[in-house]
């Protein structure tokens, strides 16, 4: 397995190249969660790329399916499929759709793209695991904008009631949603307190501090018999200076000089 910083760097580099090639949206959303994915896949998730259906694997669900470039990238880098396949992102006839898609993509547990589905799906998997006495965990990564969906709060209510301490929700709190900042569109604050009030063990971390992410992941469940929620404060477009905290990069694809700058800032292979 690659060192985690290098895995994070590669996720960013692939994501930039994929969205550029495809002229696709959502690069900012992939970059904000790159560090979370790198620590999770690099250090915590138990999986076997040779046996994607291994029953005792940990499950990861990308509920914010639009950030899928980063997910496909980490799956390729961890051996689920060849890195070259990332070049087919968005292309005619490719299974690598612009929202996380499970069909013919090894390692993608479930298809998402409509927001407010992933946490319920993960809750169902966690409940089945509990009832069967299994030890695996279910990790679900949500966007902040997705917390507007009422259907996010249905499993938020359900999971603590059923004591699903094998479930972890991570909110990629980059503070920018489709049409503006979270604060402007539909303020979520106090977000951590909302999860706490629903009965979750909650921690807030800097979602780009690998040590802090590692420490939080290692500490779940934060409260005995409770699901855990990590509110990860992140920066949309993290790692490319001109994209950081810019709504524009929810939509625009980096091309030409923009692409050159992005790749330069993300850096070359470190080993």
């Amino acid at each position, binding site marked *: 397995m690659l060192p985690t910083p290098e895995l994070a760097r590669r996720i960013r580099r692939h994501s930039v190249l994929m969205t550029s090639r495809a002229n696709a949206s959502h690069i900012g959303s992939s970059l904000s969660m790159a560090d979370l994915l790198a620590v999770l896949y690099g250090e915590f998730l138990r999986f076997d790329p040779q046996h994607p259906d291994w*029953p005792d694997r940990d499950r990861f669900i990308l509920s914010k399916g639009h950030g899928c470039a980063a997910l496909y990238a980490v799956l390729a880098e961890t051996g689920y499929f060849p890195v070259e396949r990332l070049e087919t992102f968005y292309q005619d006839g490719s299974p690598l759709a612009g929202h996380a898609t*499970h*069909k013919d993509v090894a390692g993608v*547990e*479930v*298809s*998402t*793209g*409509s927001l*407010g*589905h992933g946490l*319920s*799906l*993960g*809750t*169902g*998997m*966690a*409940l*089945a*695991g509990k*009832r*069967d006495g299994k030890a695996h965990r279910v990790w679900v990564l949500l966007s902040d904008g997705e917390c507007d969906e*009422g*259907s996010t709060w*249905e*499993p938020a*209510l*359900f999971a603590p009631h059923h004591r699903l301490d094998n479930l972890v929700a991570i909110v990629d709190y980059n503070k920018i949603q489709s049409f503006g900042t979270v604060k402007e569109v539909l303020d979520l604050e106090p977000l951590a307190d909302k999860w706490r009030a629903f009965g979750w063990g909650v921690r807030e971390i800097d979602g780009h501090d690998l040590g802090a992410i590692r420490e939080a992941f290692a500490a779940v469940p934060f409260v005995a018999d409770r699901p855990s929620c990590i509110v990860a404060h992140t920066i949309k477009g993290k790692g490319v200076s001109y994209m950081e905290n810019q709504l524009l990069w929810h939509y625009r694809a980096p091309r030409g000089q923009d692409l050159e700058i992005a790749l330069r800032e993300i850096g070359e292979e470190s080993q």
Partner: protein
Amino acid sequence: MRTAFLETLFELAKADERIVFLTGDLGFSVVEPFARQLPKQFVNAGVAEQNMTAIAAGMALSGKIALTYSIANFPTLRCLEHIRNDVCYHEANVKIVAVGGGFAYGALGASHHATEELGVMRMMPGMTVVAPADPIEARLATRAIVAHPGPCYIRLGKAGEPNVHEGPIDFELGRAIQVRDGRDVTLLSTGGMLKTAVGVARRLAERGVEARVLSLHTLKPLDTEAVLAAARETGAVVTLEQHSIIGGLGSAVAEVLAESGLPVKFKRIGLPSAFSPRVGSQQYLEEQNGLTEEPVLRAVEGLLGR
């Protein structure tokens, strides 16, 4: 039908621990024995049908056979996208169960009139759609959907409907059941309208018209062979359903007949695409909408030019 379903499911679940039953907080006084005796296979999801549906999908993707249970439109229309994306796209082994199909809860108001959901469920990719006619069919349909891998929707009536079939039947998903044979016209019925179809056929016989009656308990996949045979052999086809004439049995049969090129007289009997202006008992609303024996009889005779 509800009792037939619950008894059968209870029996199946005792023998197969993969079966999990999720309810949207409904089933007071009927679901308790299941919940008490099989707690590991029971989930009350609360009043949250979207979550219930996706949890069922998540459990099914972990090896369970998951049933979601609620009334009227709540387990279908309320959570439609969760059915489409989470259940159907993943080909998850989820069975959606609705009690109170059609006007079974007629007096409760338009919110509780389940009159479009068969059509909507038919459109879901990979979904098997079943509407049994009576408790006998409901028992066999319950076994069939649990044994069938993949998404299913079953529309039940309520409690206390009479059996229409008089003896044992062969029940197979996607295969129509012939209740009565005849050469002059075919009445195709789905769900609880079979009782009316049989009554109409009896009255037609008194007037010298021999009607074939088929119970099309499975709307999808439709038994196209039985439909085409009816058109060929009787020359006139009437569909009967407690559902909008858009999207349900009438539409499904019309699609088959239109593409068949067969010369056939055809009439859909169902509900207009409209909300019922008044509430009332199932019987009352059937009368208001021309779904009782007398108006159906007149419609059939009109079609036959008698």
